[in-house]
């Protein structure tokens, strides 16, 4: 822990800290271009020069390249260093184009700041400027190479940090060029970070190109709700339109970056099709009319059938406010327990997963970066939670071993061992891992009861092809120092998470640190689980609707059709309802069927609290007041010249306000904390994790280990799993992401393809599908044999797809 003096102020920092970081701790921002806390030092740009006055090093040195040492005296305003910086800036500006007015970086450009603060104002170089041709890098990133100052941040980020290899640096000397070998869409789903990380305007945000300047934007801290990780965002909005997401540093969750799905998903909030008016039986009505009619009709139904006649349907993408008020509606009015997901299979896995979490085994996303072995079971990070893949990449760069056990051909931007195991065998696979971890000698550590249970486990566990490999991995896990265990919650069955919990508990006795990490299906699935959604399944609710017991259904921010597989059954059930109330901010299949529709606000207008996949409470601050963008009201031309008191398109209210109106008759913003504390039994601060139960020493009871696949249909199973783009219900409305969404396809092992008579590139037209559905066949031998893998996609005819697949399975 050396103590050094920077600008006459002492600071003590850990060993190995660079001087530039030490200065940051004092709040001194030393100029930098190439240095970035996430990427480290390379000493390429030479603007972080400072003067070393006393101590082991003397003279002007680069503060990003020098480790802080005891007794150093550093002056950031050393005249020699200042002079050097001034000349370096002038050198960097030598070929810089004269295009700040048309550059989107202008206003938040590090190069602008450094040029001005370095005192460089007038070009002395009279020669011809070096120019470059630009490349089309796809719909997300705009390329403008002339502005480059050769800091190498982009190539270091893209190749070393993210592990993608299609963007880098070519050429030598003055010809150095950052880009691809051929123009084309960037392959990395983290490419949007280039726009944040580039200190000048080489990479700028393409969808928000030319829209505004940083100083004009309304900006507020927010949370990403496009997967369960809950990355921190800064949202920029202008003229009532959210136009940009940027990563906000969060040491526990996402670090400095976010994925492209989270970055470009905001378009749903300002899409022209967004419903902005209340509807009664499909006809526009005022909000007051709709709300009054909703209360009256619900009261009438309640009078007729009792409180049991009204059911509530929440969603995993709603804020905690909305979810908590739905739970209160149940407790106050006696209406049916709210259900938060129509996907019961996932709900079961989620509850078993979250019941496995406790105060000692839960880890945060950035902690995974420090693991030396990561085991992923039934989890596909790139599709389900992209930032997890980036964390794995960091772990792997530090020498960590990554193992994926999955029926899908999991791809990661880093080296990893993949063991293909069919979906029904995942529990068996984990059982094999446990056996491997315990078998050689460690069984002795167990008490008598546990030994018995272990014996049973060993007897019950079925043999699978990869058993030997899995046992070897299980054994290797016991020698790891910092193993992390990641388990998905959509593909595995409910047995897998407790088994993973058991494996972690067994391994924990012999390592420094270990933990469990469960990516969940929705942004606020954790919240839904806490608020009593775990035992509320959709199937019984649907049965009650069909049986006529439930007369009215209130659906809040949930498109049931995208979650529930049998769309025809669902449609018929909804038809039989006396009253269907829908509250949502996006147009969906269910919106059109609503008797009463109430438009809700998005996260940008309403804000809200969210619990991420590890139970961390995070707040999204409202950015805009809501309403149609001025760009829309003016039709692209200047804003209309009229005075009006209301905001056009400003009808939507936060969903919780409608629910609160039903629950208490009041529509003031609820203080979510007491409601939450009720559900969670203890207070929790923003940015902190909710208190989880303390670790239990019990051997978890596992209902079914490794019984063969149920309903064996020739060993074929259909897996619908989340893809990076196109699966998330809100991000699916983003037009730029739609461009990146690949053709809808089915991925199978070549053996399976042979059995089915499919070849790579075959196009299968699904019969009786509306809209017509065509599936492209892709072969991948890293998939488990017998698995038909399709991406989850909003708006496709899943009934027809399932019917066709079932027909295939039956043959």
């Amino acid at each position, binding site marked *: 822990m050396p103590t050094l003096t920077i600008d006459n102020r002492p600071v003590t920092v850990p060993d190995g800290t660079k001087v530039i970081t030490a200065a940051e701790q004092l709040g001194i921002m030393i100029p930098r271009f190439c240095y970035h806390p996430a990427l480290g030092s390379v000493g390429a740009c030479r603007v972080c020069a400072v003067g070393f006055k006393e101590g082991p090093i003397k003279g002007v040195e680069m503060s990003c390249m020098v480790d802080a040492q005891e007794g150093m005296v550093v002056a950031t305003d050393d005249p020699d260093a200042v002079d050097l910086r001034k000349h370096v800036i002038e050198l960097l500006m030598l070929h810089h184009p004269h295009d700040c007015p048309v550059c989107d970086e202008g206003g938040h450009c590090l190069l602008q700041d450094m040029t001005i603060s370095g005192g460089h104002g007038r070009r002395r170089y009279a020669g011809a400027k070096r120019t470059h041709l630009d490349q089309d890098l796809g719909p997300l990133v705009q390329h403008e190479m002339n502005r480059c100052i050769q800091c190498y941040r982009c190539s270091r980020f893209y190749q070393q940090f993210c592990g993608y290899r299609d963007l880098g640096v070519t050429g030598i000397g003055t010809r150095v060029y950052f880009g691809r*070998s*051929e123009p084309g869409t960037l*392959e990395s789903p983290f490419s949007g970070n280039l726009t944040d990380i580039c200190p000048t305007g080489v990479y700028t945000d393409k969808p928000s190109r030319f829209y505004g300047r940083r100083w004009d934007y309304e900006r507020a801290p927010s949370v990403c709700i496009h997967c369960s990780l809950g990355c921190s965002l800064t949202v920029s909005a202008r003229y009532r339109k959210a136009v940009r997401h940027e990563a906000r540093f969060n040491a526990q969750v996402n670090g400095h970056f976010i994925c492209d799905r989270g970055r470009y998903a905001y378009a749903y909030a300002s899409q022209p099709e967004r419903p902005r008016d209340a509807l009664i039986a499909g006809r526009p009505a005022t909000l007051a009319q709709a709300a009054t009619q909703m209360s009256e009709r619900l009261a009438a139904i309640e009078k007729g059938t009792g409180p049991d006649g009204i059911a509530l349907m929440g969603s995993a993408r709603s804020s905690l406010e909305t979810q908590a008020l739905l739970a209160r509606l149940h407790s106050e009015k006696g209406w049916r327990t709210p259900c938060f997901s129509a996907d019961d299979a996932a709900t079961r896995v989620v509850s078993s997963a979250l019941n496995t979490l406790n105060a000692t085994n839960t880890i945060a996303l950035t902690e995974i970066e420090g693991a030396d072995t990561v085991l992923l079971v039934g989890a596909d990070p790139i599709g389900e939670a992209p930032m997890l893949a980036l964390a794995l990449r960091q772990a792997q760069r530090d020498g960590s071993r990554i193992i994926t056990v999955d029926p899908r051909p999991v791809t990661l931007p880093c080296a990893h061992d993949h063991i293909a195991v069919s979906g029904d065998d995942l529990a068996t696979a984990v059982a094999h891992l446990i056996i491997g971890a315990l078998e050689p000698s460690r069984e002795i550590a167990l008490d008598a009861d546990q030994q018995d249970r272990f014996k049973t486990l060993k007897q019950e566990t079925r043999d699978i092809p990869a058993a030997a490999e899995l046992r070897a991995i299980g054994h290797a896990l016991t020698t790891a120092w910092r193993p992390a265990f990641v388990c998905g919650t959509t593909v595995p069955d409910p047995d897998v998470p407790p088994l993973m919990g058991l494996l972690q508990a067994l391994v924990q006795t012999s390592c420094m640190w270990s933990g469990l990490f469960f990516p969940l299906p929705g942004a606020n699935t954790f919240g839904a689980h806490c608020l009593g959604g775990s035992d509320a399944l959709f199937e019984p609710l649907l049965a009650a609707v069909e049986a006529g017991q439930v007369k009215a259904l209130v659906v809040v921010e949930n498109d049931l059709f995208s979650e529930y597989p049998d769309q025809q059954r669902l449609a018929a059930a909804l038809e039989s309802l006396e009253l269907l109330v829908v509250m949502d901010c996006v147009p969906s299949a269910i919106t059109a069927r609503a008797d009463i529709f109430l438009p809700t606000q998005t996260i940008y207008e309403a804000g809200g609290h969210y619990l991420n996949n590890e139970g961390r409470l995070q707040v999204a601050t409202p950015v805009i007041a809501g309403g149609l963008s001025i760009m829309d009201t003016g039709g692209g031309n200047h804003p209309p010249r009229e005075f009006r008191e209301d905001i056009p398109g400003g009808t939507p209210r936060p969903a919780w306000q409608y629910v609160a109106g039903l629950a208490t008759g009041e529509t003031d913003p609820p203080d979510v904390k007491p409601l939450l504390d009720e559900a969670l039994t203890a207070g929790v601060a923003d940015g902190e994790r909710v208190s989880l139960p303390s670790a239990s020493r019990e051997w978890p009871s596992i209902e079914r280990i490794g019984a063969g696949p149920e309903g064996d249909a020739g060993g074929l199973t259909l897996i619908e799993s989340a893809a990076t783009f196109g699966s998330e219900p809100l991000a699916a409305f983003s037009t730029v992401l739609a461009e990146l969404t690949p053709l809808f396809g089915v991925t199978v092992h070549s053996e399976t393809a042979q059995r089915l008579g499919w070849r790579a590139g075959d196009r299968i037209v699904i019969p009786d599908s509306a809209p017509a559905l065509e599936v492209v066949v892709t072969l991948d031998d*890293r998939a488990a044999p017998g698995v038909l893998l399709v991406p989850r996609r909003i708006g496709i005819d899943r009934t027809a797809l399932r019917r066709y697949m079932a027909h295939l399975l039956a043959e």
Partner: protein
Amino acid sequence: MLRPRGAFFERTIEPLELHVSEALIEKLKNEIAAVEHPRELAVDVMMALQDHHGYLSDAARDQAAELLGMSALEVDELATFYTFIFREPVGRYVIHVCDSLICWMAGEENIVDHLRQQLQIDFGQTTADGLFTLLPVCCIGYCDRAPAILVNRRVHGPLTNSRLDELLQKYRAEAAEKPGSNV
């Protein structure tokens, strides 16, 4: 092996216009298999393919990438870095003129002027008959034979204008004798 696996990095490449002999491919594959990191052989593979094609065309680059398990961009990064790997077409004989200090003291400028005059081209250009490409090069380590040039990586020096004329004559004769291949 620390090589990432997965669909992201797997490319199927179009058949090359000039087919590289199976034997060469087999030889390169064996060499690559023998080393710990395929990257180690990147320059050798590029050189081998360049010798085959005359220069490292896009197709050759893609083939090198496939052989080495690298992305096309990664190969490009190296190819554009090294002076002796040509990403653009060159003539049959590539003349590198050393422009470092010793050669300059020994009269490199005269050599250059003479070459320019004889070949009617400037640096970076190829003669109309496709025989010679003139390129400058930094010190090639033959200071003892200054002023020196490389023709297809073979050193010649010390040079005078008459020696140079002889040399050009020799290559012209050779080209007339064996048209086509430049390997």
